[in-house]
């Protein structure tokens, strides 16, 4: 089962404004691309050698923020009441 299908089982209250911003100029020179591997929902993907990211399915774990030692990820929590709403946890 792929991530998209798994995420259909999770409730989100998506905010229109992203709570994560990435500095793509730093990503261009990044060799590690660790964001591809640590995100549980694969919010970071490579598209023609460019890092593309989405915040809608974010689990708000912060793994990408800590793993990215280039500091290309400007990470904050979603606004109060928004984001992932786990029913089991």
């Amino acid at each position, binding site marked *: *089962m792929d*991530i998209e299908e*798994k*995420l259909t*089982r*999770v409730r989100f*209250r998506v905010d229109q404004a992203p709570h994560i911003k990435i500095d793509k100029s730093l990503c261009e020179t990044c060799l*590690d691309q*660790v964001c*591809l*591997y*640590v*995100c*549980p*929902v*694969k919010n970071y993907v490579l598209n023609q050698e460019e890092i593309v990211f989405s915040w809608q399915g974010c*689990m*708000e*774990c*912060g*793994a990408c*923020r*800590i*793993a990215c*030692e280039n500091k290309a990820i400007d*990470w*904050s*929590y*979603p*606004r*109060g*009441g928004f*984001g*992932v*709403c*786990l*029913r*089991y*946890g």
Partner: protein
Amino acid sequence: MNNRSQEKYDVIVVGAGPAGSTAALAAARAGLKCVFFERAEEPGQKNMFGGVLHYSESLNELIPNYWTQAPVERYVTKYNTTFITPDSSISFTLEDARFGREPYNGFTLLRSKFDRWYAEKAREAGALLVPETTVDDLVWKDNRVTGVRTGRSDGVLHADAVIVANGANSLLAEKAGYAKNPSPSNFSVAAKEVLALPEETIDQLFELKGKEGLAHLFLGECTRGVEGGGFLYTNRSSLSIGVVAKLSALQRKKISIADLLENFKTQPLIKNKIKDATLKEYSGHLIPEGGYKTLPKLYGNGLLFAGDAAGFVCSTGLTLEGMNFAIASGLAAARAVVRAREKGDFSEGQLAYYQELLERNFVLQDLKTFRRAPAFLSNPRLYELYPPLACEIASRIYRVNGEPRKNILSIMREETKGKISMWGLVKDVIQGVRALIWT
């Protein structure tokens, strides 16, 4: 929160997880005017763990016989640890009937239900719960914390003390300069699925009866040798299945945590159990695993850190505890604030009582006892070399194929040859002994 920003509280708690709700509950019971913030619509919606809540003396003190009213799933009577390779596995099982008697050794549970229930207890005790609110910063005056800045329009709220219990990814701890720049080698990430199965099926599959439960950890192929492991916990009518991996190891091996979970689910030991199960939820979370040596500063003037925000997770490889540490630290934080209020002194010197309480109970004692465990557990050989090695040696001990048999020492020599030197092996054993056995 109309006009509430004008009011001053005795204590503000950031986070309504187990540490925060404990602090709020204990503070409110002691008669303190307490407010606790939760960024979700309801407590529990952002929370996830393996997992097991191990016996919590602190919780039992606050809510006697908590298991009779808390939304727990099963009490764990069976602990399994398995080394796993693509073709073989070795397991160690502990079953203890005493774990199935009061006060119970540990319960599987689902955090969204438990945390919501627990926050409600704090609210009933008189603490004010403010959901849907982020706490974006601490408010400082003359080198002491005097309140918090929330994401709400009426922003700032003041108190004599602030207990920060906002989880593993504590931006507040970093902003305050209490937690150092977090290192990928001190954090793991988990991916987990909750899979529904009928209660009777779970009883049958795992040889459990009544409310008995299983906690099963896996090492080796389940993470393709990446530092971390797989887990399976039985809930009442669902399974919690997931993988945990060190951030730095995922980077080194260029493997995705999400893919590791899929890989784990294809292992025969897991695959056969979940073939009829349906996915109820998928989630991910961060785990602070640096242990004692990477703990942040725990308190300051008008400020205390508890739970995951303080890095209170204790991993020994066989056991992984966090929730009971969170609850015990939340209670200690509240007690320190209650005493500070009696003395009319919320300075760092007075709040040092928090650390004293943590040193007196298991929180800092256990972390100190197993202070070398994080370094031992970040030895890659534990995950990529030893599980297949142990499985292969065991397999050859049992294997009968018409060839003349060899003694066990010869098998061990042949299997380790070229993989690790005798000296390397001895060093790893010594490190393991010093980390876990003779600490």
